């Protein structure tokens, strides 16, 4: 079971769960709530509804949320309506968490991560309208793998996915080695999708956060004045380790047939507080009126930590790309029609 992390003791699995045609009203609430409980949702979906001021899912950053083969079809998210949103939590974490010690007994150990991952895989989003951010999360580990977004309309000053550290509490735990880390039960902490990109990563580094967008398709997207993805991560480790690595991997994604109502001054994808960015084998087609595809900024402007921005470009059909430094430690990747 992927992402089983330290001290995770309540797990919920939803399988073949379908909701069709629902009417939501009243004060803001969420249809499905996970508070400190791992959620695994597979072969499920929501269909044919419109609503305001509500969320379909809310989750605390201490809950793993894993969606596999999820379908969202013909949903109109009106004002202040979200697909996944954050539920505020008072995280009073003293730095110790339940684990299995070397003698095989349960004990409290210091410095273990308490924040979890959000993963959306093999899922379909079709004919979706939204005016507020569709997916908000403060999980440090974000995995979007092999998803299809078709007929997506971003109708406000918003984003499809916004991932940032919304809670400014003490990050009282150590870094995550990721490739080698196992949970208390000896299981790897990362899912299968990691094995396909693991070779790209520096195995000697420890990571504070990891945002991976891999093999996603964004097709027939209408944008008024929005971004697709915004990632802004704070260091999750203790302050003395402030140069820890925040990693973004954007690989083998396809963005095609974007209809943008006016020339956007904001890039489609914004990654800030990043010190390692790996972009590879992405395809961009017919992105009319888009002035920038990526904006990347470093973890700390005054940081001495090394940054690694690796770009391998692959552009198709009437496209060219210009890479130029916009200002110190901040890079834009512009897209121009030929």
């Amino acid at each position, binding site marked *: 079971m992927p992402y089983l992390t330290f001290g995770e*003791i309540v*797990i*919920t699995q939803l*399988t073949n*769960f379908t909701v069709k045609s*629902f009417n*939501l009203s009243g004060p803001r*609430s969420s249809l*499905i709530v996970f508070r400190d*409980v791992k959620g695994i949702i597979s072969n499920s979906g929501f269909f044919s509804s419109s609503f305001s001021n509500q969320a379909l899912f809310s989750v605390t950053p201490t809950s793993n949320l894993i969606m596999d083969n999820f379908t969202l079809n013909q949903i109109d998210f009106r004002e202040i309506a979200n697909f996944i949103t954050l539920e505020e939590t008072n995280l009073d974490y003293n730095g110790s968490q339940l684990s299995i010690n070397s003698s095989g007994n349960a004990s409290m150990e210091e410095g273990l991560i308490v924040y979890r991952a959000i993963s959306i895989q093999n899922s379909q989003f079709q004919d979706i309208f939204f005016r507020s951010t569709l997916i908000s999360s403060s999980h440090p580990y974000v995995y979007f793998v092999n998803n299809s977004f078709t007929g997506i309309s971003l109708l406000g000053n918003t984003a499809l996915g916004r991932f940032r550290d919304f809670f400014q509490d003490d990050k009282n735990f150590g870094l995550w080695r990721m490739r080698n880390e196992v949970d208390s039960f000896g299981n790897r902490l990362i899912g299968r999708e990691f094995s396909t990109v693991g070779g790209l990563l520096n195995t000697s580094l420890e990571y504070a956060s990891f945002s991976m967008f891999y093999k996603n398709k964004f097709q027939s997207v209408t944008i008024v004045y929005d971004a697709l993805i915004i990632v802004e991560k704070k260091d999750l480790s203790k302050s003395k380790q402030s140069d820890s690595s925040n990693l973004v991997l954007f690989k083998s994604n396809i963005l095609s047939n974007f209809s943008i109502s006016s020339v956007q001054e904001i890039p489609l994808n914004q990654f800030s507080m990043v010190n390692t960015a790996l972009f590879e084998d992405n395809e961009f087609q017919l992105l009319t009126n888009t002035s920038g595809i990526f904006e990347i900024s470093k973890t700390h402007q005054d940081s001495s930590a090394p940054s690694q921005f690796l770009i391998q470009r692959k552009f198709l059909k009437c496209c060219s790309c210009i890479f130029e430094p916009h200002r110190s430690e901040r890079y834009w990747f512009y897209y121009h029609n030929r």
Partner: protein
Amino acid sequence: MIPTVSISGLSISLNATLFASLFVISRIPMFSMTDVNLTNNTLLISSNRAIFAINETQNVNLSHFSMFDTKMKSSSLSPHFLFQIISPYGVGNSITMDDLLISGDNILQLTKALDIQGEFRNVNISNVSISDLSIVSGAILSADMAHRDEKTLFIWFGKRTASLLTLENFMLQNLSLSASNIFDFSKH
């Protein structure tokens, strides 16, 4: 102690005010209930009361439950329950529910259809169909999982044991929800 209680073939049709839970099952190791039907009920229920209150029971099995044209309303501002299952302690406790149907003109106000609190090893709910249901300030399922104390938590974790809720084959259609949850999962 009575080891097993089984109820089969129960039909409820009431127009009533309930100041206490209608059925209370306490400290029964094995409780099973099958072929239960609620039709044409109009119920005003006191807060924290339930149609079926099940306490400290190690194994709960419910199958073939149906509800039609039932209105449940709370007599105060606190919720009441269709089913409430509480287990303050028990490493091996389990709940199994299968074949649940809610259809017709059902209106639930301040109602949690299923409320689960406490220590459970496994909760399995499968083959659920809900249509044309209206809920105001309530939930279909609320589960608040907890361990009695830290010592108990260490025992569970030391055995590599987690509480596992498995919900499979749910079809929900034409729901009207106001300030309500379909599922509310929490741990404390």
